[in-house]
């Protein structure tokens, strides 16, 4: 590996990320999959970084799942998206910050379509007006939530209580970064580091003391792919995709996986259990599985948040091996017995209408 070569490419793929005043839109599925992640994100943004992050209760799905599942036609999708923009405009925000990779990809795609076909944009404006009487401005800045964490990775590092280092050996943890397909594969120029050698998560890991490992099937999809997973008969294909990735990363002996997509951590996590049940195959050191995290969880961990407050008990592949390696102080008996209710001051009034 020639690091200089990668750095040269990373230099080519930089993007503008707004500093403050974000209009945050949640993901449809993440709150079910790993509910602690978005909460942690807001806490980090608001409490650690003191940023203005705004949410609106009237925000709906972007229809991305329906769109990629060939159920929702593109014009409908565009009108729904136009409505999200209108709500943002009404709230007085310009920097759109989706939590979901597919939403991010879809917004990017729609903005690009409108850029090339202004008449489509006009048509969508007319439709939105007709349907809701709303008007919108296009976002001034569009960034994925992981882009923002990437942007403030140094600030987070400066406040960090832990590093991604094995406290027993002093070695950096070996971290596999997995990027959601819709982050940069459709529009490489919109992703930090491009599509071939993405840097968004690698940058965080490096900054927080870990070591990113690069393995042959790095680019391979986790297998979520909406249509593949939604139909039970196709799930064999979905799990085969994850398996291909595990087989490929196996010789590198990764300590953990970090992801930035709603579906990927879900599938990389749950499929390890399924593969074990169906084929008796286990991955990770001592065959105890490779823990899979979202980037918010990792950020929360290095900042010293309680693992159970971060929702790590929701992982099917146990996270304790990594916690032990880092040396995080946690009480095993509290795992499924949450005594303290998350104490984030603003989180109780998450929806700030």
């Amino acid at each position, binding site marked *: 590996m020639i690091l200089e070569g990668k750095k040269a490419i990373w230099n080519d793929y930089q993007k503008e990320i707004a500093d403050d005043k974000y209009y945050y839109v949640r993901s449809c599925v993440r709150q079910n999959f790993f509910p602690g992640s978005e909460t942690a994100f807001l806490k980090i943004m608001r409490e650690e970084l003191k940023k203005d992050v705004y949410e609106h209760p009237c925000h709906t799905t972007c229809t991305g799942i329906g769109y990629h599942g060939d159920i929702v036609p593109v014009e409908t999708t565009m009108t729904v998206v136009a409505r999200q923009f209108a709500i943002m405009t009404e709230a007085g925000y310009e920097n759109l910050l989706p939590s979901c990779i597919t939403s991010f990809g879809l917004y990017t795609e729609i903005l690009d379509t409108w850029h090339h076909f202004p008449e489509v944009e006009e048509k969508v404006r007319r439709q939105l007006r007709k349907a809701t009487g709303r008007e919108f401005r296009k976002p001034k800045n569009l960034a994925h939530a992981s882009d923002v964490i990437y942007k403030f990775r140094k600030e987070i590092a400066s406040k960090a209580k832990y590093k991604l280092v094995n406290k027993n050996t002093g070695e950096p943890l070996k971290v596999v970064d997995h990027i959601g397909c819709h982050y940069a594969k459709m529009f490489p120029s919109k992703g930090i580091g491009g599509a071939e050698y993405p840097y968004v998560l690698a940058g965080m890991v490096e900054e927080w003391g870990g070591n990113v490992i690069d393995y042959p099937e790095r680019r391979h999809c986790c297998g979520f792919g909406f249509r593949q997973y939604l139909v*039970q*008969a196709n*799930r064999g294909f979905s799990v085969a995709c994850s398996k291909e990735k595990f087989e490929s990363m196996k010789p590198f002996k990764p300590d953990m996986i970090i992801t930035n997509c709603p579906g990927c951590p879900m599938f990389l996590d749950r499929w390890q259990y399924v593969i074990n049940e169906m084929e008796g195959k286990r991955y990770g050191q001592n065959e105890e599985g490779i823990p899979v995290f979202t980037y918010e969880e990792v950020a929360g961990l290095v900042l010293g948040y309680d693992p159970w407050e971060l929702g790590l008990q929701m992982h099917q592949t146990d996270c304790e091996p990594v916690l032990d390696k880092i040396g995080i102080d946690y009480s095993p008996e509290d795992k499924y017995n949450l005594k303290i209710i998350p104490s984030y001051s603003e989180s109780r009034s998450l929806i700030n209408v």
Partner: protein
Amino acid sequence: MEKFGFTISKGRQIDYESNNRRIAEYIFENEPSFRLCFECGGCSATCTTANFTGFSLRELNILIKRGENDQVRSTLKKCMLCGKCTLVCPRGVNTRNIVVLAKQAFQKSDEYEI
């Protein structure tokens, strides 16, 4: 083993390193013209068996070379060795001998001779 209503799909990918290419090597050794095939498909076009079945000598050629032997083993015996393919081949590949050698090689590999 647990059942979830589906099974983990087998990969279709040819894994070049872990495939068994001894059959191909045996043929290369005994019939060097095996290398000369450039997959034009003339053999399959004239083939009597190919007119009746999905048998394709061209395809067998490439599968053997890649070590994808299972499929070859089951279709190889359909060949009638009539030799029309040999007459048609633009590269002078000794096609009949390849079929015969492939059969031999399978037998030998069953007997752990190669």
